[in-house]
Structures are given as structure tokens and as C-alpha cells.
């Protein structure tokens, strides 16, 4: 394999990983903006996305695309239920630290539920289209990679349109800037928070359903994904959606190219060191503004 082929291969791998991180990171950002909460159960949305999809395609034998949409809907429902049961009430009084720990407790609880339904083994899904790799410039790339990339880009674009072009989206952005002011101008903040969890869960489900064919899924995959997504969200400038997406892709690429050209032993360390250097040099992340992180004190 020549250098060009290698680079294309690493690029494809990096973008695949990156799109997962990007979607989880974007999910973090949406909830953070609406509530100031870092939702550490974000990875569990991905896990549910993958496993619910497995249930409908493999166990019930429904057609792929039908079960895909059912999966999105169900996971969104889980996200909304989560918000109403565990966030809605305490978010009015509890300190942010407690809310953070509540999300950890929820993630433990979700893992428990998933373990009961699906057990501990990993599951796989059929590829959305052909499982045969396509050869591009000497590199072999699975069609599923294009699905993942396409779906994540579509999601990002839709989110952008939603936040910038629709009234509801703008109302949500307003909540992000100032909750009190938003409620004063008649925005139903509580509904916006609910919506943020719904959207975030949908994104998670999308990521989960699309990666399971190549990465498998099991009940305790969540925390790792949450960690990576959190990094992406901060690196991109907490509270800045597009930043999180770009940073997510960046993280994926860093990991993949470090593996290729330095050492796979340090792929995570390289990503983390870059993250920390960015924080030390420009605490607001690569794309963020200085104020966002400061406003919401823990």
C-alpha cells in the first residue's frame, strides 16, 4: 500500500471515529446549552440506539429502515422520559454538581436496564448496504462508513437549520444565552429543556444505530463514548455546536493518524494532550468565546 493509500485509509478511519465523537459532542452541547448540565449519560443514548435497532432488525425481523426510525423515536422517548423523571424536578433547586452526578447515576441505571434486556454480549447489525468494501485510491472503505458520515453530516446540517432558521430553534438558543430573559419574553424554558434532551437522544440513537454494523454494541459501551464526546464538546468550545462537530472529527483524525504515523499506544494520549494544551492556551476551546464557560459556574 502506498503512502497515498495509507493516508486515505487513515482519513476514512479518522472520519468514521470522528463522526461518532461529533454526534455525541453535539448531543452534549445541546443539553449543555439548554441547562448548563454536562450529561454523562450521553453515551447511553448511543448504546440504546444500537441495541434497540438490534432488537427491531434482528429479533423482530423488521426491515432496516423501518426499525431505524422506530429506534430513533424510542430513544428520543427515553431521552424525554429521562428529563422528566430525573432532571426536570431537581434542576430547579439542586446544585450543578449534584445534577452532574445525577446524570452519572442515570447512566448506571440505564446500563443496568440494558444488561437485563440484552445481557452482556455484544450485538451486531447488518450493514445498511453492501458489506463489501469499496476501493478508493488503494484504500478499502466500507459503504457503511459513507452511511455514518452522511447521516452525521445530515444531522449536523439539520441541527444548524433548526437552531438558526426556526422559531423554536431560536427560542432554544435564547435559553442558552439567558434562561431568565428567555422566560421573560414568553419562551417556555421547561419545554425547551425537554426538547434539548429529546434532540440529544435522537443524535445519540443515530450514532448508535449507524455504527453498530461495524463497531458492534454492548450494554456498557456508553461511558467511553461519553468521555470522547465530552472532549469534543469542550475542545470545540463548550456550548458551540458547530465547534463540537469539527472538534469531534478532529479528535477522530488525530487518533487515526497518531496510530498510523506515531504509535497506537499513544493515540488517546495525543488527543488528550492536544485538548489540554488548547485549554491552557485558549481555555474557551478552539472555536468558543471566552464567556460561555464562565457564565455557568459549577
Amino acid at each position, binding site marked *: 500500500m502506498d503512502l497515498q493509500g495509507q493516508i486515505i485509509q487513515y482519513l476514512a478511519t479518522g472520519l468514521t471515529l470522528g463522526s461518532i465523537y461529533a454526534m455525541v459532542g453535539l448531543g452534549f452541547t445541546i443539553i449543555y446549552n439548554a441547562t448548563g448540565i454536562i450529561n454523562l449519560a450521553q453515551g447511553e443514548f448511543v448504546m440504546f440506539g444500537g441495541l434497540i435497532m438490534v432488537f427491531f432488525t434482528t429479533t423482530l425481523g423488521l426491515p432496516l429502515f423501518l426499525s431505524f426510525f422506530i429506534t430513533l423515536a424510542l430513544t428520543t422517548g427515553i431521552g424525554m422520559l429521562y428529563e422528566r423523571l430525573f432532571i426536570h424536578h431537581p434542576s430547579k433547586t439542586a446544585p450543578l454538581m449534584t445534577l452532574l452526578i445525577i446524570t452519572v447515576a442515570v447512566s448506571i441505571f440505564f446500563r443496568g436496564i440494558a444488561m437485563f434486556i440484552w445481557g452482556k454480549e455484544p450485538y451486531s447489525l447488518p450493514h445498511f448496504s453492501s458489506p463489501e468494501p469499496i476501493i478508493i485510491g488503494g484504500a478499502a472503505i466500507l459503504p457503511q462508513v459513507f452511511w455514518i458520515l452522511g447521516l452525521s453530516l445530515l444531522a449536523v446540517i439539520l441541527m444548524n437549520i433548526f437552531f438558526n432558521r426556526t422559531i423554536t430553534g431560536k427560542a432554544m438558543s435564547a435559553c442558552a444565552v439567558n434562561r431568565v430573559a428567555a422566560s421573560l419574553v414568553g419562551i417556555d424554558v421547561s419545554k425547551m429543556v425537554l426538547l434539548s434532551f429529546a434532540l440529544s437522544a435522537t443524535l445519540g440513537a443515530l450514532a448508535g444505530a449507524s455504527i453498530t454494523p461495524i463497531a458492534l454494541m454492548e450494554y456498557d459501551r456508553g461511558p467511553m463514548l461519553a*468521555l470522547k464526546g465530552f472532549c469534543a464538546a469542550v475542545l470545540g468550545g463548550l456550548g458551540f455546536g458547530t465547534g463540537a462537530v469539527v472538534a469531534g472529527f478532529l479528535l477522530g483524525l488525530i487518533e487515526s493518524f497518531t496510530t498510523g504515523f506515531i504509535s497506537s499506544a499513544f493515540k488517546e494520549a495525543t488527543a488528550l494532550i492536544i485538548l*489540554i494544551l488548547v*485549554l491552557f492556551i485558549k481555555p474557551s476551546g478552539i472555536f468558543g468565546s471566552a464567556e460561555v464557560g464562565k457564565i455557568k459556574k459549577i
Partner: protein
Amino acid sequence: MGKNNYLKLLVMAAIIAVVPLIVSGDYHLSILVFMGINCMVVVGLSLLMGYAGQISLGHAAFFGIGAYSTGILTTQFGLSIYAAFLCGILFSSLVAVIIGIPALRLQGHYLAIATLGIGEIIYIIFNEMVGLTGGPSGLSNIPAFHVGGYPFSHSIQYYYLVWGALLVILWFSLNLIHSRVGRALKAMHGSEVAAGAMGINLSAYKIQIFVLSAIYASIAGSIYAHFVSFIAPNNFAFMNSIMFLMMGVVGGLHNIWGAVMGASLMTFLPEYLRVFKEFDILIYGAILLAILLFMPEGFLEGIPMLYRKYFKRGEA
């Protein structure tokens, strides 16, 4: 420190002395040893987060530095346990200073992610420095703690060691809270601008308290290593930092006693839930959620509050 706290320390010392008369057996005492170890780390976190208002999502790394320092120095360099202990403390202080100086300039979530990232890097180092740490397979055969050549062979000895050390740590911490330094920390937590205007050197105090909490974690880690005799990087990963944090939040980080209660409860609970076999993860999660939802300020504040709310409505 007020009389009240001396009283509490005395009561605690009495309880510590009496407990082995009631509780016996290696297993039960081991739970108590782990409990004490966790308490140490969480008391440090309480000082750092509850009092000084600085967040750390990477404290398991300091726990690990303590454990690995004693582990490596005793098994591979034949250092005496006490020297290794001291080196652990020095080393974790050093690391805390090096990362504290740039990190503690950050605020809120940025500090959170920075500490998390550094914690993960240290975890990766544990994993990759196979020659020293044994890598993911871990480091085994760490010698038992000993006093004057008599090795600790039973949990009861560790029990007294851990809880004795914890008493000293609590005494030190309570003294600190009720002193000029403690007031400065609380002031900083209340308002950084006002604290600065009162002549409080914010960055110096942040670093001092960060180092102190790292030292507590390191001592706990060293004892852990000698007690279990085996350590692997897994015990010092991100989720463990979160677990320490969770213990603190459950008990109430704003009060040292809350930290002690939280750590005790969260160490004890999983053992108690063993009877539920595999359901324990669900029940554990549910109990945790219930505590957090109904007592957002933690156990210590929450129980009396709930009590007043539901049983003494008339008096309120």
C-alpha cells in the same frame, strides 16, 4: 475548630475503637478498610470542591500515583515502606503543583475537563510504562504494611491504620476549615473578586488545597496498594474519579462529615446489595438516584431535612 467538632471526632474515635469488638472477620473489616480509604480521598475532594469551589474529575489519578509509587518503589527498588510512602506523597504533590498551576487558572467546566484529561493521561502512563508499572496486567506482590518489622497480616491492623490516619486527616482538615486558611477558601468559593479584595492570594490557595487533596488521595492510594497487594490501572481510571465524586455528592461535599458519610455509605451499599445478585446494578442506580433526587444537598443535610419535612410539619 469548634467544640462540636472535637466532640464528633471523639465520638468517632470511640466508635472506631469499639467497632472491631462487634464486627469481626476479615471480610467485614476489609469493607471497613476500603471505606476508610475512600473516606480519605473524598475528604480531600470535599476540601477542594465543597470548600474551595474547585472541581476535579481526575482524583483517581492521585490515588493511583500514591498506589504506584509505593508499589513500584517497594517491589522494584526495595525501598522501605515508609520511604516509599513519603515518596508517594512528594511525587503526587509535585504532579499536583505542575498540573495545578496552569489548570487552576481555568474555571468551571474547563477546569473539570482539564483535570479529567490529565487524569486520563496519567492512567495511560500507568498502562504504557510496562517496565515500571507492569502495564495493564498490573503490579503484584506489593509487600504488606509493617511496623518495626512486624508485617500486617490481618485486616484489623489495616483497619486501625486507615481509620487512625483518617482521624488525623479529619483533625487536620477540621482545624484547617476553622482557621484563617479555611475562611479564605470559603471566601474564594463565595466570591473570587471579593476574596481578592480581601488580600487573599487566590491562585496560591487553590494550588495549596489542590496539593493537599492530592496528598490525601496519595496516602489513601498507598495504603490501598499495601492492603490489596495488587494494583492495575483499571482502579485509577476516569470512572473511579467519578465514583469518588459521587460519594462526596451523596454525602454532601459542603461538609467534611458529609464526605465521610457519603464515602461510607457508597462503599457499604454495594456489599449490602450482594444479596440481590445481578439486580444490584439496578437497585444501586435506583438508590443513588433516589438519594440525589430527594436530597440534592447530600445525605447529611438531606436526612434531617426530610425528617423535618415529613414528621414534624407542625413544628416548622
